[in-house]
């Protein structure tokens, strides 16, 4: 079986996997990182989103072997070593952007990528469009959209440009 070596949440990790093993299976079943969830089998729901080399990726859509040598960040790797939460995590809690919590890890990882890749601001429409690949059945998205808008100034260290509001 192929061996895969990668960096996960800043620490080296390696495991023997079947060629067909998905990245999400490697994370959950071999590395014990169960914060990344599996909500479907057609790459539609986004519960499994992680960051691979800084980009949001559905980890059910990528083979573990394709992540060989990559830097992967999962929901467990977002908070600082002292437990300080990422601003996106804080805003999800502050704005009640989660209920059952199952879609939350994927939502948070997608949201961080969305905010990071929009340094000029985000409109509600852009946020909603950016969440197209993530399903939530509990919240109706209302508070998720609010949380992401609230996290933007915290992540960029400046106010949201007026045009984007």
């Amino acid at each position, binding site marked *: 079986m192929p061996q895969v070596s990668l960096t996960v949440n800043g620490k080296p990790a390696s495991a023997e996997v079947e060629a067909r093993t998905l990245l999400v299976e490697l994370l959950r079943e071999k590395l014990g990182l169960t914060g990344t969830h599996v909500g479907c089998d057609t790459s539609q729901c986004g519960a499994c989103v992680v960051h691979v080399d800084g980009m949001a990726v559905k980890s059910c859509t990528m083979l573990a072997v394709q992540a060989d040598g990559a830097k992967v960040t999962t929901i467990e790797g977002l908070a600082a070593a002292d437990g300080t939460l990422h601003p996106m995590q804080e805003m999800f*809690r502050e704005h009640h952007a989660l*209920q059952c919590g199952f879609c939350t890890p994927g939502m948070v990882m997608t949201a961080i990528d969305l905010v990071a890749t929009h340094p000029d601001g985000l409109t509600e429409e852009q946020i909603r469009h950016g969440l197209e690949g993530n399903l939530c059945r*509990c919240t109706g998205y209302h508070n998720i959209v609010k949380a992401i808008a609230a996290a933007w100034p915290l992540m960029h260290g400046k106010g949201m440009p007026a045009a984007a509001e």
Partner: protein
Amino acid sequence: MAPPFEGIGASVRRKEDLRFISGHGHYTDDINRPGQVYAYFRRSDRPHAKIVSIDTKEAAAAPGVLAIYTAADLAAIGGLPCGWQIHNKDGSPMAEPKHPVLAEGRVRHVGDPIAVVIAETKQQAKDAAELLAIDFEDLPGVATVTDAVKPGAPQVHDGVANNVCYDWHIGDKAAVDAAFARAAHKVRLDLTNNRLIPNAMEPRAAIGEYDAATGDYTLYTTTQNPHVIRLLMCAFVLQLPEHKVRVVAPDVGGGFGSKIYHYAEEAVVTWAAAKLHRPIKWTAERSESFMSDAHGRDHVTTGELALDKDGKFIGLRVHTYANMGAYLSTFATAVPTYLSATLLAGTYTTPAIYGEVTAVFTNTVPVDAYRGAGRPETAYLIERLVDCAARETGIDRVEIRRRNFIPRSAFPYQTPVALQYDSGDYVATLDVAMKKADWAGFPARRAAAAAKGRLRGIGMSTYIEACGVAPSAVAGALGARAGLYEVANIRFNPTGSVTVFTGTHSHGQGHETTLAQLVTEQLGVPLAQVEVVHGDTAKIPFGMGTYGSRSLAVGGSAMVKAMDKIIAKGKKIAAHLLEADVRDIEFKDGKFTVAGTDKSKTIGEIAFTAYVPHNYPHEELEPGLEETAFYDPKNFTFPGGCHICEVEIDRDTGVVHVVNFTAVDDVGRVVNPMIVEGQVQGGVAQGIGQALLENAAYDASGQLVSGSFMDYTMPRADDLPSFHVATENTMCTHNPLGSKGCGEVGAIGSPPAVINAVVDALRDYGVRHVDMPATPAKIWSIMHAAAPKMAAE
């Protein structure tokens, strides 16, 4: 500094969130037991067939395979039970064919489990399952209720004539016939309440475990009600004593009803764990969820409303065909009857009502309660009928509602269909909603949209629902095979913190916060010092679980009763310590005080004394401070309200955009407004999903066409607007909290508001009704089939 307000009415942030936002939730599939192996179910890919033979030889020889079981191996265990027995019009009981755990000689729906393969790894189990050689002889199948009741239709079960499970009725037929005979106006509407697939984001999962040394079983499962699963599985399926079985429902990723029921996979992994002496895990793939989680709705209904010359409703006649699917799921039979037809009065004074329900078997996945369960179906029917009546009598749709509302002064109000509403103020929720939605300003918005080539419509619903099915004695008389009380155990720890053990279960509702707030409010213990424990039969005395928006109204009331007992005992301890008469002890803000003095003891001091009883009234009291209460409600609770939806239709594509949605609900006492708003927002999203997007599609033979997220349209963030949500509350009069429940109102009030808005937008096309979901294809076809009566541009 005053302590922060954390009691009833405070939007405190949720205690459970830290673990969820940091990836440390603990869902069933996150659990791995030592020595664990994996189950994979081979399911029917055809709607209806005889199983001629199952050859397991090649699969059994595949790598890692430990066992393969079929129905032949399960001969000694029972079928999956139905929890509510309905009786026919003639008094005879409903048809209740066996629901085998694994198919017995015949498959009756796509997804029907036939065999289970247990192997060392998940992949090995799945690979081996594909090697099972099963010979089928296909039988004709039937998917819809209208096809299933036709003469000559394929028969789903031997011995169930014409596929009819039951033929039930409620109300006064003669009075309704008389009302129609003298009616000035009659309005009839035929409609379908579309079949939905709940799709909680966490797929179902189960781990069965057996300890050979003690004979104890443990089942970890994605359920909304662990004690109910233990009862059903032990008593009916596996015939195990309940004290040897522990059922744990850890973090559960959404339920919406679909995780109430006892499913085959739970029984199989528990049973097989004892055969193999290995823990066995099963986790559904999403495609399995689509064909094995109980579906929702699927009613075909005819409603007729009789009005007098002034537009007063004088009679309502309803017939519903309800699709049960291939087998009876746990509470399927109650949904179209006692959870639906009993609400046919809606918010109106209609004096004569007659409802009939024909429940029908088809070759489809079993149908059961899904968010709202029967109540959305009734609200949709009534609120669509009322809009049709308004249009056909020429009375304004708001005015016709006002004219027929049960007035606030009429409560308690006895409806003609069994229920007695305790409280409500339908005019108030209507007025607030119309103001918030700027109903009066709509014509200008419509004109502005028309100028841009868009069709704009507005619609409302003024719905009611019934929550917290009760009391047990009445439910039992109507066929329920379980009680519907709830249980709470409140335990002070010696150093003053509190652990709450509740029989309800949280799978997104935020009970760890809301229920803790009740303790803060009543006992004056800071929120951080209160822990809520749920979801484990080994820890919780008993419980009926969470569904039907019952957790606060019923489970919270049980907590209040238990806390009343804590205070009563605390007063006796305080009287002893303060050398006062117990009748002079007052309890307020966490302190026991001798009335009229400054002599007091905090509840923490009392708890410590109860556990370190050196100076203690031992002759009168036992040590310890822990109380349990079982609460059986006196009645349902009756949330209601007004939802207003505004849509714009794109003429070129037929896409319906919800541009404004206002929900003003009466949910009784609100404990945490933030959580209530979140519940309503989520419910509204599901209701808009039903109205515009979602549909469980079968072909005529029973093949499931919408079997994945590629085919079944879930509401996504860009399908929905931000919502305007508010409450305008009257208190429930018969429970100690005054709370009514908020979990389902969103999904109940919204579908009729959306469709009423869509029909309003299409009014120039002579459209009277659009069945859900109002998809772009459907709308486009309507617009192109009929030229507008007048040019809108």
